[in-house]
């Protein structure tokens, strides 16, 4: 399959080349010749949902283990080569994918792709380092217990998507302790392959050269099936975690549509009006006008086939109930006094961000991959701009009137529980 998209406008010209290799890996390349850098993002179908039921944390552990020596290099040599190539690197797992990101001065790109082919295709998975990698994850898990906001939001995510899709990449202490070398090897052998994999490359590189590099690095990798999807099993409940903290940390979520849904931007614009920027409803009416909190925000989150709006507010216990009540009131009344200026401001914000994304190869590379994963194709900057530009205030109003937020999931952490509205309210 081959397709090439070329759209030009006054500000930017996006030329994204998309190719699917014989083994099922999709390669997307966006040349950005005005940059001195290049970046890639490689996503494999080896995310949290591929973990066997009892072994939550295995996907992250394997993602860590493949980087502890690969090809001709041990763990220290790998890091030395990456540093000497000037690679700013990242890795991590989400519900559906394991991802490896690398940004660098563009002359390092050919070597970097070869190195990451070693990492994902020829890792040593050294048995004598499994306990170190496990301990590393236990450290992260312990760290998260000390972060009240993260604790609240992680639990909220579990309640929102259900025990399977809502799992955290940190895993659980019990599961991490159980994982054996055999589990790591099995997960690696089953899920690390080119089937459904996505490689996005952006920056100072041309399309032909990028394709040749990708083909050389991954063209002869084995293929494999994609993990089937799981249903969302969220529940409308309220949970309180009692702790003697200075603030009450409030998390809330309601079901919504994922990125890629035809009505996504109507929904997203509403969340933008609620929470993007200093003149947004929540910031203005909860913080600026009433002084109820320092942080209050809502944002959209998407899985492949499900989505949610997640919100957070932190405030001292005596003002927590009022903060929650005002926040929910603002969300419920979003459409009652919508002003054209609110949508216009959100559009300018998104359009500015899209144009400024042209300054970052890393940001484009990761957008290429997430678009391909969520939509099945890359979206050019121009296409996205025109979708945003064509939104009318009535589109946003009608969508939100027809899809009133409800069935809230709540998690609070603090000295006292709050009165959360019942699911029927």
């Amino acid at each position, binding site marked *: 399959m081959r397709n090439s998209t070329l759209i030009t406008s006054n500000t930017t010209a996006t030329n994204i080349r998309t190719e699917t290799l014989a083994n099922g890996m999709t390669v997307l390349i966006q040349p950005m010749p005005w940059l001195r850098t290049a970046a890639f993002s490689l996503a494999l179908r080896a995310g949290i949902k591929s973990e066997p039921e009892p072994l939550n944390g295995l996907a992250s552990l394997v993602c860590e283990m493949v980087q502890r020596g690969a090809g001709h290099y041990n763990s220290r040599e790998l890091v030395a080569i*990456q540093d000497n190539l000037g690679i700013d690197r990242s890795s991590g797992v989400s519900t559906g994918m394991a991802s490896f990101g690398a940004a660098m001065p563009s002359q390092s790109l050919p070597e970097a792709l070869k190195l990451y082919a070693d990492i994902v295709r020829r890792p040593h998975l050294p048995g004598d380092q499994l306990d170190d990698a496990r301990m590393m994850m236990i450290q992260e898990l312990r760290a998260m217990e000390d972060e009240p906001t993260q604790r609240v939001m992680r639990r909220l995510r579990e309640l929102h998507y259900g025990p399977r899709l809502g799992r955290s990449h940190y895993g659980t202490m019990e599961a991490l302790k159980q994982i054996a070398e055999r589990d790591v090897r099995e997960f690696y052998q089953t899920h690390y392959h080119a089937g459904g994999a996505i490689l996005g490359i952006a920056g100072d590189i041309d399309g032909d050269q990028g394709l040749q590099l990708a083909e050389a690095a991954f063209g002869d990798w084995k293929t494999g099936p994609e993990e089937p999807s799981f249903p969302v099993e969220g529940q409308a409940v309220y949970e309180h975690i009692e702790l003697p903290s200075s603030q009450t940390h409030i998390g809330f979520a309601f079901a919504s549509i994922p990125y890629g849904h035809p009505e996504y931007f109507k929904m997203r614009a509403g969340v933008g009006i609620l929470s993007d920027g200093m003149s947004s409803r929540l910031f203005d009416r909860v913080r600026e006008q009433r002084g109820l909190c320092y942080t209050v925000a809502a944002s959209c989150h998407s899985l492949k086939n499900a989505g949610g709006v997640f919100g957070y507010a932190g405030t001292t216990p005596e003002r927590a109930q009022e903060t929650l009540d005002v926040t929910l009131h603002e969300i419920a009344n979003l459409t009652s006094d919508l002003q054209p200026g609110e949508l216009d401001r959100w559009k300018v914000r998104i359009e500015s961000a899209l144009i400024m994304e042209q300054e970052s190869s890393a940001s484009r590379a990761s957008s290429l991959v997430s678009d391909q994963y969520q939509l099945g194709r890359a979206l050019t900057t121009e296409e996205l701009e025109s979708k945003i530009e064509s939104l009318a205030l009535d589109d946003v109003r009608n969508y939100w009137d027809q899809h009133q937020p409800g069935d809230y999931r709540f998690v609070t952490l603090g000295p006292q529980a709050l009165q959360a509205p019942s699911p029927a309210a």
Partner: protein
Amino acid sequence: MPEFRSVTLPSGLRIAAEIDSRSYSAAFGYFVRAGSRDEVDCESGLSHFLEHMMFKGTASRSAADVNRELDELGGQSNAFTTEEQTVYYSTVLPKYQDRLLDLLSDMLDPILDAEEFETERQVILEEIAKYEDQPPFGAFERMMEVHFGPRGLGRRVLGTAESIQSMTVERMRDYFHRRYRPENIVLAASGNVDFDAMVDAVSQHSRSWCSRPQPAVPSADDSGSLPPGIQLDRTLPIADAFQAYCVSIAGGPTMKSDDRYAARVLASIIGDEGGSRLFWELIDTGRAEVATVWPQEFTDTGAWFTYMICAPEDVAANQRVIDEVIHSAVENGVQQSELEQAVNKATAGCIMQSERPGNRLFGLGSRWLMCDDYVNVDETLQRLRALDVDAVSVAARKYLTTPIERVFAVGAEVELSG
């Protein structure tokens, strides 16, 4: 290559810009010499409180107008306060330059309304409470207080709940007039900037800033007592903390020291989050969640931080590992291969960072404000590439042998040994 231009207006306000017409964006920031080190006890937290109040309205704009107009320009706008300065900044598309400068400059002339002051006091108290719940639970502030004393550089930026509760709007107005004078202010810009238009716009706006009243300097603090709400215990008991948070501090290079590049590379070799000596000893092995070092440069002094997070029962053993790593760097210096790796990493990072004007702004503005000095990307790269093993080893002997003080934030029931 970007072009550097600067000018000092008749009022004393300075403007500095690194102009690159190829950029998609332009970043602008007002950098003001008003930080917690400029406060006395009864003003503790004022620089930061004032930073919030600058968004709360001017003679011609309400608070809502300010926030709304900032959003209309679609950029990334915000402000922050440190021990030495307060910064108001925004990155926007070049077409919004005039409107943004009009707005930012107007914001620097706030009305400081008494009612807004009361509402915002609550937000500041919430911000203080928020940080009390977050790791490392005030351990950095405590470390600064212990090392520098609770005044001057050791004064906490947010102030204390006590100082904020007792603050008055009159005191804030006096502090504003004292610190927000043109000679204490730099306007910096980077990216796709129209320099001449910027100078014209700001010349007009800032004309009246010279005629701000000059309030009397407040009387000096009684150095024999602690400011309200301040304690200097080396251990902070934190209810229910899982991890132990250990901060230590020693001397480091100043913003003007020639060996600051050597110190940064030394810190990278010892404590970078991937591939440093501490990484391989403590992070890669899962013995600690964080084990790192970094130099923090101030105008007239410097600090060298060491930061470790781990399980409380592992603190003593891990601390010994850190001490050995430091001792070895002092005794044996660094290896050529380590130096090359750290320099390659730092230069690549610098090149990548320089692609976004918003990233260049902060170094440019602070340096011009504090040191009247500009360092371009190529010079930074040259300074890094010119480092040799001797220079970094000398920095290790100079900064890693200065006396060290420590602060711990740990669960209330935990006893630390070692």
